[in-house]
């Protein structure tokens, strides 16, 4: 138990002053601007937005600057800020079929309507350090080549399989989704709640859970049916007016897995789906999310419980949030003097008793 302590104000103030100095670093080096972070560390910004569960690139960049690049600390700052905002309502569900894709690939179909678009990807790079980037004051890179745009809308790959009943359908039954920011998580959790928790879950944790399924702990035989990144319009009904307005545009990453499925007692043999969706360009996270989503669906698909960690929704959902995890983990470094004092006394007492028992026996 943490017990309040008093005192230490002077030391704490000095520590925070030093923190501010360390954050700024060597004064002979130019200070980073929010715009620089937002533009040049975009994937860090995206991760903080996804796990902070708030789309606002400027705020995420500020949080990264304030946290000295500690991304979990930055996520914490965003979550704390979020709690100060009044919630004006919910948007209509985004329509990812209408996404303006900058990247769209499929590992299952070579030729798909709308084509495969690589986009600005690390794939096919050689992962060799580029020392040219270490030289400052370089000319800007050559402009990326352009070509006449492909068709505006790109149908989902899973839709193609759905036409032939080869994949489990995904139907809108009009259910109102639960919201874990408004009511505590209850288990067993509906899939909507699981997806919300995964979308804001720690990338490293979700990645490891997904990897464990690939290595055999709850194997789901996943193919990336489609991965797409791009801008989608966010539409919201304006209560005063009674009609919807496309109030914004956000970047999201969507991954749909197509999973081998031999059928079960309740379900026919057909492909099944895992789904990943994240704020911002977060490719690894979205793929991982879709694998974990699929593993967690074992019950509704009538599969056997194999005891794998990724199938255990309590294990996954209760440990995916890095703000919760870091809060509980790091609080043990705070003063626990009273707790520890009682532990110390107990160990001394037990040792004294043990010694007395031994002496009596001799």
């Amino acid at each position, binding site marked *: 138990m943490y017990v309040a302590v008093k005192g230490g104000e002077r030391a704490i103030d000095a520590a925070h002053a030093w923190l501010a100095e360390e954050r700024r670093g060597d004064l002979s080096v130019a200070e980073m601007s929010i715009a620089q972070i937002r533009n040049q560390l975009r994937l860090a910004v995206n991760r903080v937005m996804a796990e902070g569960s708030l789309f606002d690139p400027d705020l995420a960049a500020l949080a990264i600057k304030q946290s000295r690049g500690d991304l979990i600390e930055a996520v914490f700052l965003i979550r704390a800020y979020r709690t100060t905002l009044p919630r004006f309502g919910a948007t209509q569900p985004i329509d990812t079929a209408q996404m303006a894709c900058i990247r769209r690939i499929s590992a299952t179909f*070579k030729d798909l309507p709308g084509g495969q678009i690589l986009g600005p990807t690390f794939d096919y790079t050689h992962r060799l350090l580029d020392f040219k980037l270490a030289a400052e004051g370089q000319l800007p890179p050559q402009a990326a080549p352009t070509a006449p745009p492909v068709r505006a809308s790109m149908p989902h790959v899973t839709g193609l399989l759905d036409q032939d009943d080869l994949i489990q359908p995904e139907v809108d039954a009009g259910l109102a989704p639960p919201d874990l920011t408004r009511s505590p998580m209850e288990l067993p959790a509906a899939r909507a709640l699981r997806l919300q928790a995964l979308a804001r879950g720690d990338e490293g944790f979700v990645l490891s859970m997904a990897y464990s399924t690939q290595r055999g702990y709850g194997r789901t035989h996943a193919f990336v049916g489609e991965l797409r990144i791009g801008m989608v319009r966010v539409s919201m009904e304006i209560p005063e007016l009674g009609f919807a307005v496309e109030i914004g545009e956000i970047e999201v990453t969507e991954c749909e897995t197509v999973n081998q499925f031999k059928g079960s007692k309740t379900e026919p043999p057909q492909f099944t789906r895992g789904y990943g969706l994240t704020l911002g360009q977060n490719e690894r996270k979205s793929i991982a999310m879709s694998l974990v989503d699929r593993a967690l669906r074992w019950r509704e698909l009538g599969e056997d419980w194999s005891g794998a960690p990724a199938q255990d929704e309590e294990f996954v959902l209760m440990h995916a949030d890095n703000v919760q995890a870091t809060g509980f983990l790091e609080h043990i470094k705070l003063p626990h003097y009273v707790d520890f004092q009682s532990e110390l006394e107990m160990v001394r007492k037990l040792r004294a008793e043990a010694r007395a028992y031994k002496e009596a026996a001799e």
Partner: protein
Amino acid sequence: MQASPAPLFDRPAWMGLLSRAAPQMLAERLALALPEGLADHSLLRGPEVGSVMVQGRMGGTGDAFHLGEMTVTRCSVRLATGEVGHAVVQGRSAEQARRAAVVDALLQNPLHAGLHSSLLAPLAEAEATAARGRAEKAAATQVEFFTLMRGEDA
């Protein structure tokens, strides 16, 4: 205001354009379209920063779930001439929300229909240009994969 042809945008469309425009662009375009400044108005609500919860759909087409929030700013105004305008804009710019609400009110009066061509059309064009720029770069990375015959199959 000069008389102008039929309005180019309906209200949901113009509110969307005003909401999605970058704050600086809206300020600059508005300064050109309304050189005399924003019409006299009183604030009915806000500008107030808040959030909206963005929803996604399972599998893209299934039931909704909560993806995460985004910041928005809302504002409602009444013009001296009586029209009421509303705005919910992406981001945290109070100025943008106020401008968008005033323009929403102005556009309800046919007297200001000139704003369709002087303000809204350039905003729509700028948005389309940005989208086209991304689409053209994306198109240049469109790939054709060929499957090769495996040695053992030959």
